[in-house]
């Protein structure tokens, strides 16, 4: 029985009515008087020099009001390609016209003179010396060369004795490792704990494999859109469907050299983000440039095809992974070498490669990760950025080891999981997290311990870990004469976060949830709020809301003390009214009465504020079990059961949490089984929903969600961020279930039917 009356309850979402009636205003719903329509002129080649840009024909088209190129960017910050394009879809110019069809027509009339260059799309090709190079970068050393280089430095620094013989030998070896000279490297990261060579030597079993994960798109329902309006004073207003209005404000300001306070970002309801809706390059900056040039409002809205060619999807990667264990199931060492496909710019989630350690006690760990340039658009965050990819590799390999040593997959994981106080490889000490509770919960709920399977059926288990982010935020609360409570803030609702904020405030102020409403401000009016990504909002804004509500309580009690002629510590706020604790006869005053009274006192209206910076987060675990059936003749895989558990700390709204668990699981399933951005020398070849498949409700049975609550010390009411963890295990969950069904492991996602058939053939079935 919960000690709380509003938090922990599945109340309806504050935005439910607006969403289901269509009243919610998305970016594309914004119309401004005299608005023009922008269209981006995009590269038709994946890699080419630009020898000329001729806008003259386009300018002559009736209805065209402006064309902007890099020459219009006074700061010199790169907005449009000038001398070289690096992917199909790269912006070269933008057109504004009185009508979207004219803008489209004009964009086609801009003549670009290209000189085509060789193209590279595969990361393992891109690192080779013979490939085209996208940028004039230095080469980087691979793991073995790095080890030798470090040793050489040590030897040459040591003047106590003569190392010339060893130096000569090592130098020769260093130079012979030619295939470890990597080209087109955008970034690198290296982590080491213990001694992996020693760990592998002590292992009874060592498994090594290469895992390939495709680039996938966030496929939010609403494509990127921006409406910009620059007035004659230079003030710029941007209507943006975004996860982070304050990031848009600073991004536009920085890119175009506009003073921060001369930009107001008005956020609209957001049609999905999943990490992909933070940047300013796609629509916001071009819209502002066009509006500045024309003096009229301009809308720039991407089509779905543009989303695929010039969105910022999740990076694909190739992970070479090696794990050593003992026959009794202790993991001794793990080594990863990852190549992340970062596209034309750096920025792939290479830092997440360290998550290949999972939540296990791996005494020896070595991780080398590289970002690699290819002729694709850049990448950005997608729900637990980088982690589904590495968890797929890590959890697949654990499954292999469990099979080889004949140990149950759940038991094997339980045996190796870290507990409170354990050393995290290359990290700090483990806090208290419900790792084992979460895995046991999913196993129990799925019927793992007495599982049965028919022909061509299989069971798979996998886990994934993630830690929510944290950032600054501010909230104001007002209490009105009717007792209603109004919250004012500037963070973007991301699938239920406003509801969680309202629940927290209602709980603290002891008022019914229905009495609490929310107003979202724009960047001119609202206090700063961190962006809605990284599972951050309920943690950060939830804490902020709690502080604001507590501040409001102080004000309420002070007022009530004045009104009831007693001291504040003799008062109690309960059920929406303040009562005197020790007094005869009992007296009380409702919040509405107090609010009315506040207008006539010298104190003024009841206003509370909360301002929150940062507090350490606690890791979370998601664990999943799937049961599948494979058609051995077509290769189709059907999910028969999917159970997904998660340590959420505390579920402020259990139904919303279940929604997150279901959504993340389905996105993970899609990545495992069908989603894949395909490229060839002409660029992205499946830029639409016909050949980029996202699942429908017909593809999966109901996902059974299991909520585990091990409170996070710094979370509001113990809550952790819940949005990202559920996608992390699913790629491996599905892969492991398919192995159990067909006896062969497919190490390259997605597991399309044809790959299943090929795997069966290779296995002689």
């Amino acid at each position, binding site marked *: 029985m919960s000690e709380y009356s509003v938090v922990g309850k599945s109340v309806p979402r504050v935005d439910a009515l607006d969403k289901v009636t269509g009243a919610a205003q998305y970016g594309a719903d914004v119309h401004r008087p005299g608005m023009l329509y922008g269209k981006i002129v995009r590269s038709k080649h994946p890699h080419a020099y630009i020898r000329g840009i001729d806008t003259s024909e386009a300018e002559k088209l009736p209805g065209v009001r402006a064309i902007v190129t890099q020459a219009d960017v006074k700061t010199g910050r790169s907005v449009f390609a000038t001398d070289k394009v690096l992917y199909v879809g790269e912006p070269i110019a933008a057109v504004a016209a009185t009508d979207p069809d004219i803008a489209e027509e004009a964009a086609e009339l801009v003549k670009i003179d290209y000189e085509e260059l060789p193209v590279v799309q595969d990361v393992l090709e891109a690192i080779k010396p013979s490939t085209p190079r996208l940028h004039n970068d230095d080469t980087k050393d691979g793991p073995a060369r790095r080890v030798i280089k470090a040793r050489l430095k040590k030897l040459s620094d040591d003047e106590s004795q003569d190392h010339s013989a060893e130096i000569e030998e090592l130098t020769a070896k260093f130079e012979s490792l030619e295939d470890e000279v990597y080209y087109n490297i955008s970034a690198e990261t290296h982590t080491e704990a213990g001694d992996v060579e020693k760990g592998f030597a002590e292992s009874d079993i060592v498994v090594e494999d290469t895992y390939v994960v495709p680039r996938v798109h966030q496929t939010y329902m609403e494509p990127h859109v921006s409406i910009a309006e620059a007035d004659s004073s230079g003030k710029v207003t941007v209507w943006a469907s975004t996860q982070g209005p304050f990031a848009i404000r600073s991004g536009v300001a920085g890119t175009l050299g506009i003073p921060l306070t001369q930009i107001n970002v008005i956020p609209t309801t957001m049609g999905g983000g999943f990490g992909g809706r933070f940047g300013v390059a796609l629509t916001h900056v071009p819209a502002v440039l066009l509006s500045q040039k024309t003096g009229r409002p301009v809308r720039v809205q991407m089509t779905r095809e543009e989303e695929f060619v010039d969105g910022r999807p999740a990076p694909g990667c190739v992970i070479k992974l090696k794990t050593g264990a003992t026959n009794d199931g202790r993991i001794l060492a793990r080594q990863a070498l990852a190549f992340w496909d970062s596209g034309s710019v750096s920025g792939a989630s290479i830092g997440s490669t360290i998550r290949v350690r999972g939540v296990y006690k791996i005494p020896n760990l070595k991780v080398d990760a590289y970002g690699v340039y290819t002729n694709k658009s850049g990448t950005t965050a997608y729900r637990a950025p980088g982690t589904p990819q590495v968890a797929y590799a890590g959890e697949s390999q654990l499954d292999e080891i469990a099979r080889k040593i004949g140990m149950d997959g759940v038991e094997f994981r339980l045996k190796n999981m870290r507990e409170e106080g354990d050393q995290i490889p290359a990290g700090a000490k483990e806090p208290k997290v419900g790792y084992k509770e979460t895995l046991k919960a999913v196993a129990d709920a799925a019927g793992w311990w007495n599982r049965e399977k028919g022909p061509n059926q299989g069971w798979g288990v996998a886990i994934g870990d993630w830690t929510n982010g944290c950032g600054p935020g501010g909230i104001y609360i007002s209490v009105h004469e009717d007792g209603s409570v109004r919250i004012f803030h500037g963070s973007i609702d991301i699938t239920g976060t406003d509801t969680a904020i309202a629940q927290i405030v209602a709980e603290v102020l002891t008022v019914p949830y229905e009495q609490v409403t929310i107003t979202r401000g724009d960047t001119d009016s609202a206090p700063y709020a961190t962006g809605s990504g990284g599972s951050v909002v309920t943690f950060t804004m939830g804490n902020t809301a709690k502080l604001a509500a507590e501040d409001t309580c102080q004000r309420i009690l002070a007022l009530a003390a004045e009104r009831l002629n007693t001291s504040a510590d003799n008062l109690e706020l309960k059920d929406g009214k303040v009562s005197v604790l020790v007094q005869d006869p009992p007296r009380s005053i409702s919040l509405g009465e107090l609010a009315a009274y506040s207008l006539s006192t010298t104190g003024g209206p009841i206003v509370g504020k909360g301002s929150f910076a940062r507090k350490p987060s606690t890791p979370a675990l998601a664990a999943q079990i799937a049961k599948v059936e494979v058609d051995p003749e077509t290769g*189709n895989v059907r999910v028969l059961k999917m159970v997904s558990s998660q340590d959420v700390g505390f579920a402020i709204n259990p139904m919303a949490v279940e929604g997150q668990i279901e959504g993340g699981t389905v996105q993970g399933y899609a990545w495992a089984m069908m989603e894949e951005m395909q490229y060839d020398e002409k660029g992205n070849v499946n830029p639409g929903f016909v050949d980029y*498949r996202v699942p429908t409700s*017909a*593809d999966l049975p109901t996902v059974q969600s299991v909520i585990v609550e091990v409170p996070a010390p710094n979370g509001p009411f113990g809550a952790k961020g819940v949005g990202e963890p559920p996608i992390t295990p699913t790629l491996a969950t599905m892969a492991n279930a398919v192995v159990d069904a067909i006896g062969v492991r497919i190490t390259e996602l997605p597991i399309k039917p044809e790959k299943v058939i090929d795997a069966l053939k290779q296995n002689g079935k």
Partner: protein
Amino acid sequence: MRNFEFFEPTTVEEASSLLAQYNGKARLLAGGTDLIIGMKARTEMPEYVISLENIPGLDGITYDEGSGLRVGAMTKMRALETDAIIRDRYTALAEGAAEVGSIQIRHLATLGGNIGHASPAADAAAALLVLDAQVQIGSADGQRTVPIDALFTGPGTTVLEPGEIITAFEFPPRPANSGSQYLKQKIREVMDLAFVGVASAVTLNDGAVENTRIGLAAVAPTPIRATEAEGIINRYHPVTKEILEQAAEAASAQSRPISDLRCSAEYRRQIVGVLTRRTVQTAINRAQS
């Protein structure tokens, strides 16, 4: 979308005259589920669009035990999918129609559009092939009939002359001891395009399988009949597992698939065999029940 002139004729003759007059620059609008998407993507930029919506008599399903089934070209996929007679006697057609897009799309998409678009992967085409459809073609000059086997000439092309419009499809009566099925290989359960589509239809005569028809979609430049496989099924009695396997191999061999971003030719060929075996078996089972 590029600007265009829009016509809403009320007779086939009027529509045909417009189509002939603007030959090469005009497109017929039926359900619009292919055309409008193409126009938005600027892969289709007709200067003239001629709607068939206001022409009476193009929409509707009629059935007569003697003369068989008539389906107007403007009949919606959803109507085919839900029609009791089609589900019972022309099952492969109902199943083919049910595989097109989503329910919303099927309330717009028409059989005439699906066939006239002449996609090699058209879900209804394989069913029409095995149910012996006759294509009614109208123009300002009159009517003619073309058997479905002779309609397609290549991806997106048909034997239709300038100004000709598909007006209806006629199917011979199907006895109670007949059966058919359409199966489609896809990745997504619904709203996916056919990687391979196979329809089979049979009639039983004293327990012997005859009049076998096997239609293949997405494995050749046009939807095709697997005539070799049909012959094998018709030739042997009873149709054993081995006979089915032989027919499957023959259908596979007769298919001419390509490799593309969806899958390889080799995989498509294998699936032709699998779905041929499955659909023939189901058609026989349905004929028996």
